Structure formats: structure tokens, C-alpha cells
């Protein structure tokens, strides 16, 4: 049986394999807007992003936050220049995967067709809707 093609806007959200936190769409949004800096269990979260100019980053910002990537950067600059956050961290998918494998605090989104290993998948985002289950095809 042939797998259905992935939806263009599917993202999986991953954390370190030892991170047992659950997440809702609201909490994911609050994390990426730094309205909270911690997972549900109170442990600090470190956000990772796909490259700033990538179509994936732009799509993720729109789907989750209803902001363009430019607006997201504009929003984040408020946090940086009040001394409340560091710069956004951008990396390519391979590097993100590596960082999530090594950093218990890391959380990242990746294109749904990324081959995942050594990380825990919290769920996936499709058409702006969060599903806390492994990505389905």
C-alpha cells in the first residue's frame, strides 16, 4: 500500500528523549512566544528554529503563531532589547536534530518527513492544528 503524500505544511515537534512533558497547542504557542519559558513540568525550554529565511520557518510561524517570520522577529526583538531573551537560534534540520539529541531542554520543529532518531516526538502540526500523536500519513 502506498503512503499518502505528506501535507506540505506538516511539522513534527521534538524534544530530548528523556523529556517526558506533554504539550498542547496553546502551550507550544506560549513557548514560541516566550510567554512561558518552561515545559509543563517546570523545566526550562530552549527553542530551536529552522533557518530564518527558510520556507519551513515562515510556514511554521504562520501556522502556529499567525505571524509572518518578519513579524515573529519583530516580536522577538522586544524580548531581546528588554534584556529578557537571547537571540533566536536558527539551524538546519540535521543540526537541530543533533542539538535536541544532546540538550535535555531543547524543543524544535522539523519538517514531518525528517528521519527522526534519538529524540522524542511530541506530536505534529498540520494546517495550524496540533495533534499530540506521531505524524500520520
Amino acid at each position, binding site marked *: 500500500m502506498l503512503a499518502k503524500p505528506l501535507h506540505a505544511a506538516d511539522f513534527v515537534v521534538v524534544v530530548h528523549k528523556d523529556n517526558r512533558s506533554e504539550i498542547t497547542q*496553546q*502551550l507550544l*504557542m*506560549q513557548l514560541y512566544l516566550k*510567554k*512561558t*519559558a*518552561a515545559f509543563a513540568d*517546570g*523545566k*526550562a*525550554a530552549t527553542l530551536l528554529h529552522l533557518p*530564518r*529565511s527558510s520556507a519551513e520557518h515562515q510556514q511554521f510561524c504562520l501556522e502556529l503563531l*499567525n505571524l*509572518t*517570520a*518578519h*513579524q515573529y*522577529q*519583530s*516580536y522577538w*526583538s*522586544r524580548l*531581546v*532589547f*528588554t*534584556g*529578557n531573551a*537571547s*537571540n533566536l537560534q536558527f539551524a538546519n534540520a540535521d543540526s537541530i536534530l543533533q542539538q535536541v539529541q544532546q540538550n535535555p531542554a531543547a524543543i524544535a520543529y522539523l519538517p514531518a518527513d525528517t528521519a527522526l532518531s534519538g529524540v522524542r516526538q511530541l506530536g505534529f502540526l498540520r494546517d495550524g492544528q496540533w495533534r499530540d500523536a506521531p505524524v500520520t500519513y
Partner: protein
Amino acid sequence: MKSKSRLNHQLCVLFVGCCMWLPAQAQQPVSVNGFGSVRLGELLPSKDNPQLVEFYNEDGLSFADDTLFGLQLQAELDTDLSYTLQLLSKAVEDYDPDVSLAFVRYQLDPNHQIKFGRLAVPLFAQSDIQYVGYSHDYSRLPKAMYYRFDFEVADGLAFEGQQIIQDFSLKYVMQLTEFSGNVFKNQGSGGIPIKLHQMKNLRLELAYQQLQLFAGGVRADTEGDQLNVQLLEPLRPALQASGASPEAQQQFMAALNFNKDAEYAFWGLRWQYQAWKLEAERSRYGITESADVLNTAEYLALSYRFDRFIVTLHQEKLAENPENVQWLQQVTAPKLRQIGLNFSKNVNNNTYRMQVLSWRYDLQPGVALKADIFSGKHQLDRVGRFNGFSLGVDFVF
């Protein structure tokens, strides 16, 4: 002024030195960030210049009013401790840099922190980012409210936190600071020194999905002896000529005295729905029971986003009612009341409304081009209607 320039020059050299030296020495990352705005604008026609504070007061095209540069050094001393140093150079002050932030931050837990040092005083909802043009969609934050107070930074302590309550997020900021410096610097002579003691500030932000409600307030004890000397003492000859008794004159001066509580309060909302954004804020402030009547400022803004292009229309209004002279309640002599009323009309006359249409175009990450046209009306007859425009670029790095 010259000694301030020398001091700030030395500060800049030290800052740049730190920027170059610390990243190489520190084991933890040191980040250097910056922001800036370069904007050209003009009021039309210039002969009707309304003399709004720092708002295209010069005749003709001007780069000075909105152009500024900021540089920030932020370093993690360990996982919980960090420091932030920010310098701000405004063209209107001939790029003489000021320390706009200088604090140590201690992270109590992921969602709570204390800051100690020079802090931005959140007089209003966006006061702490008012100079970071890139962080908002306006060409400048509504002038009626964000007209650049001299005491927008102060030294002290802050406790900041945020909490998730079901689907709501709540952010709270509490500050206790002291300010010592000059006000009315824009009116020449280096300004008038005042002190604001025990500035107590509380700011709350409640967010649910795309809706944000915010409110806050500041209360401080004003020590404004020089304000009294420079603004009130010139009234003495008129008081003596009125024939009022010395006791009545004393009571009159006590009523106008500026050594009282300064109070600021603001509240508003921000709501985003698909490509639309609505933002509104209102504030009331002044020195209570003094010759400084209550000011009210407000704005209402509606934006629409076309991908990289954002159009915003807003109306802003500042009102000072010079006839609101409750502080003259204790003064019964008609001649003295009239002197008080005349004084109030002279010093409390900044009432205007303005409509502004702004465009923002996100050219590339960290760079936004902006333009606006504005039209307003000031209550002073010598000002009346005014129009203008500005073009510029805001950036961060």
C-alpha cells in the same frame, strides 16, 4: 554638557572595548545586538509647527527627530546570572550616548527573574521598547502617549514573572526605582532637576490566544524644589499685588507646589485576528493636587497585513484640561484663583489629536522600511491644524 559628552565618550570607548574583549574571554556566549532608526520627516506647512515635544520642531526636512542608534551587550555569567548593558544615541541629542539599560538579571526559575540596576520604567505598555522601531509597526509609537519622558529609565530593582493558568498566560512586572535628573530638557538650559523617590511600578499582561489585555501604574514621591522655584516663584509679584493676606498667599503656593505624588496609570488591549490587528491604550497621569493637571492620552490603531506589507491607521489624542483646577479648592480669594487659573492655562496647554496612516515593508530579516503621513489639530490657535510625513528605515541586528 561638555563634561557629560566626555563622560559618555569614555563610556562608549569602554563599551566597545567590552564588546570586543568579552566575547573572546568569556566562556559563556556574549551577544552584541543593536537597533536603530533613520527617519526623515517634516511638518507641513512648517510655519504652523505645533512645537510638539521632539516632533519635527525644526523648519524644513529633519533627520534629527526620530533617528537613533542603540547598542546592547548581553552576557550569561552562568546559567542563572546575566548582565545587559545598552547604550542609546539619539540624533536629537547630537548622538551623545546615554546608558538606557544596565542591569544584572538573576533567574529564580525559568519563569521568574529579578533585575537590579538601571531599568526601563514601564510608564506605559510599550515604554520599554519605545526606541526599538523595528519591534512595532508604527513609524513611531503614538506621540500623544510615548513622547519621551525624561524619567523613562531609573535605578532600582525589578521582579518579573509569568505564569500559565490553563489557556491564559499572565505576565507581571514589579519595580521599585529612584530617579534623579532633569526634566523639560527640550526647553533649553539643560532642564530643571527633579527627583522621583520610591517609584513603585506594577504592570500586568493577560493573554489568551491572540488577545492581550494589559494595565499598569506608577506612583512616586516628587521632589521638585527647582520646579517650584522656576515655575511658581515668578508668581510672587502678582500675588503681592493682589492684596491677599500672607496666609492666603502661602496657602496658594502650597496648593500649586509640585512636591506631591506623581501617578501614572495605563490600560489597553491588543487583538490579532488573521491578518488584522487592533491595538488600543489609554493613560492618565500627573502630579496629584498640584499645578500639573491630569493628562489623558489615548490611541486606537487598526492594522492589516499583506504578507510583508503592513498598513496601520491610528488616531491618537493628548488632553490637558487647564480648567480642571481642583487643586485650587483650598484657595478662596477670587484674585488668587484667577492667578492660578491663568497659570494653569499657560502651563497646561498641550491638547491635540492626530490621525496617522503608516506603512511598514519588511525588506529583509531585521530591516523594515516605513513611511507615514499624519494630520492633526492642536487646541492652541497659534498652532491649529498641522500635517506632515516621514520616511525611514528601522533595523535590528
